[in-house]
């Protein structure tokens, strides 16, 4: 009797629990199904190839024998490899630094002028970001052309040059960095402009009443307020710039004599053109450390940012 009563009381409760659980299960099943194409895509075309490239890197050229780490020891012995490492680091660090610097200044300039004209200026400054990189790179190549360079024509007017923009290693390095800065700066500017809009106006008013100059306001008010977004953009751009392919490929194709070669272009040359897929895979794997470190800090920054707001 008591048993029955207890059961009688329990049954509806259990029933409700069951439906809730079933409901939850149903909800999560639907959710899982909705996310399934995404999961499959990421697993099949991103995660699997990424792991597969580590396996590829341990094979010989004909991909029939396991050779362990000998691809890497082979690379370490080649001077070209160390040149590529050096050039990749110089290329990425210099380009990212200037993109950040110009981005900060441009954002501040745009922010200083009356709100009415800001859209127009921002619009003109972002054109280089919108044009497909391959197309702007080929235009720069034409501007740098050894015999018809439009820049050299201008420089000749003031009795300078002709400058071998892409023919001489130092100038070629300068040129690929310049074009990368040209193409990538708008991203920084737009991010910083968005961040500037969220800095409270009172801080600037207080600073100017205290007699702070333009520089002081930039250094003591703006930059501390934007620290988080600056680190996110720099790390993000570091990944993208390290992995850059089209600008270097089109402008110099790694030349003169591999002096401007970076990881992606060299991996392409060895792996696809040279038909040595394992060696190409080994080269591209060197992008992983910088990728991992940057990704870790970006994620931390983004989390911190979403906690703040």
């Amino acid at each position, binding site marked *: 009797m008591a048993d029955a009563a207890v059961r009688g009381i329990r049954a509806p409760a259990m029933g409700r629990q069951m439906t809730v659980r079933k409901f939850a299960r149903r909800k999560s099943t639907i959710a899982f199904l909705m996310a399934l194409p995404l999961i499959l895509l*990421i697993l099949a075309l*991103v995660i699997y190839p990424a792991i597969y490239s580590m396996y590829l890197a341990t094979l010989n050229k004909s991909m029939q024998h396991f050779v362990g780490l000998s691809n890497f020891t082979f690379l370490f012995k080649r001077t070209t490899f160390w040149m590529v490492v050096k050039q990749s680091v110089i290329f990425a660090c210099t380009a990212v630094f200037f993109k950040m610097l110009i981005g900060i200044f441009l954002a501040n300039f745009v922010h200083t002028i009356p709100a009415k004209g800001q859209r127009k200026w921002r619009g003109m400054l972002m*054109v280089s970001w919108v044009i497909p990189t391959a197309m702007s790179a080929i*235009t720069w190549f034409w501007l740098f052309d050894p015999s*018809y360079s439009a820049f050299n024509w201008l420089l000749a007017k003031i009795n300078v040059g002709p400058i071998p923009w892409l023919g001489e290693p130092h100038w070629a390095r300068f040129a690929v960095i310049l074009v990368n800065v040209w193409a990538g700066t708008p991203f920084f500017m737009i991010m910083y402009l968005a961040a500037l809009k969220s800095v409270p106006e009172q801080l600037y008013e207080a600073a100017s009443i205290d007699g702070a100059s333009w520089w002081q306001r930039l250094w003591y008010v703006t930059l501390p307020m934007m620290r988080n977004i600056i680190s996110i953009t720099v790390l993000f751009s570091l990944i993208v710039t390290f992995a850059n392919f089209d600008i270097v490929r089109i402008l110099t194709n790694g030349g003169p004599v591999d002096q401007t070669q970076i990881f992606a272009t060299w991996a*392409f040359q060895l*792996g696809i053109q040279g038909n040595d897929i394992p060696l190409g895979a080994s080269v591209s794997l060197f992008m992983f450390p910088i*990728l991992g470190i940057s990704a870790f800090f970006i994620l931390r920054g983004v989390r911190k940012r*979403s906690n703040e707001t």
Partner: protein
Amino acid sequence: MAATAEISAGAGRVARRGSIKGSRRKALFWSYVFLVIFVIFFLTPPVYMFITSLKSSGEISAAVNPWWVFHPTLDNYTALLGQRQFLIFFRNSAVVALSVVAITMLISVPAAFALARMKFWGSATLATGVFLTYLIPESLLFIPLFKIFAFIRDTTGIELINHWWVLVILYPTLSVPFCTWIMIGYFASIPKELDEAALIDGAGYIQMLTRIFIPVALPGIIAATIFAFTVSWADFLYPLAFTTSADQLVLPVGIITTLIKGDVYNWGQIMTGSLLCAAPPLIIYAFLMDYYVAGLTAGATKG
């Protein structure tokens, strides 16, 4: 004595206020100066693209001012647009970009909805994973993917390499993670009350997505669409690695590989082609700048 002190203090205040106004005017002046300099820097290549596209090859190789068009002609445009090959590049690019946009939206919108609203086992990890895959660059993936596709050919006989539609398979790896990531941000910003109300009214999850979330998050969807389109329109590495036959190329690679024959550069046509290739993204940008900017900034500010 006290009076003079007061006066000098007052004068100081006036002078300081004057200097605030003065420094503001100075900042404004220098802002404009630098903006003009940088706008010239940023607009030089596209302007030069346009200048060259209006020149005949005779004028290009003549020793005259390269920054001016003396005999403007549309020959390059008619030559290029009358060329079957160029139209094939354009068609390939358009079909690839539009298909990728459709696929990206079909995959990322439901997934973002599921990840933002319907928590399931591992959904938080997956959201982070989506962001991390977005950070994996294509230059790391093209070699293993090339080998995988070659392997598929050897085992099943399905030839993927050197067909333009292989790009429809490849480009979603670039567009889907980012689009999902920004859609998660947009969906998460929609108030919870809205879906509770919908559930009480008896709407299912699919209805909730199509009737409420998609309309409310439309700006985000437009931003994601623009991103997917521009990425698949502009990419260079995948088509260069995966397609080689002239009739399978897309615009960027087609222009660079077919208009440059050995050491002969047909600069008039190359610049015209580049301009025509840059036109669709530029037009989208001109009309939808705010969405474009929103898509750009959403990655780091939302989610």
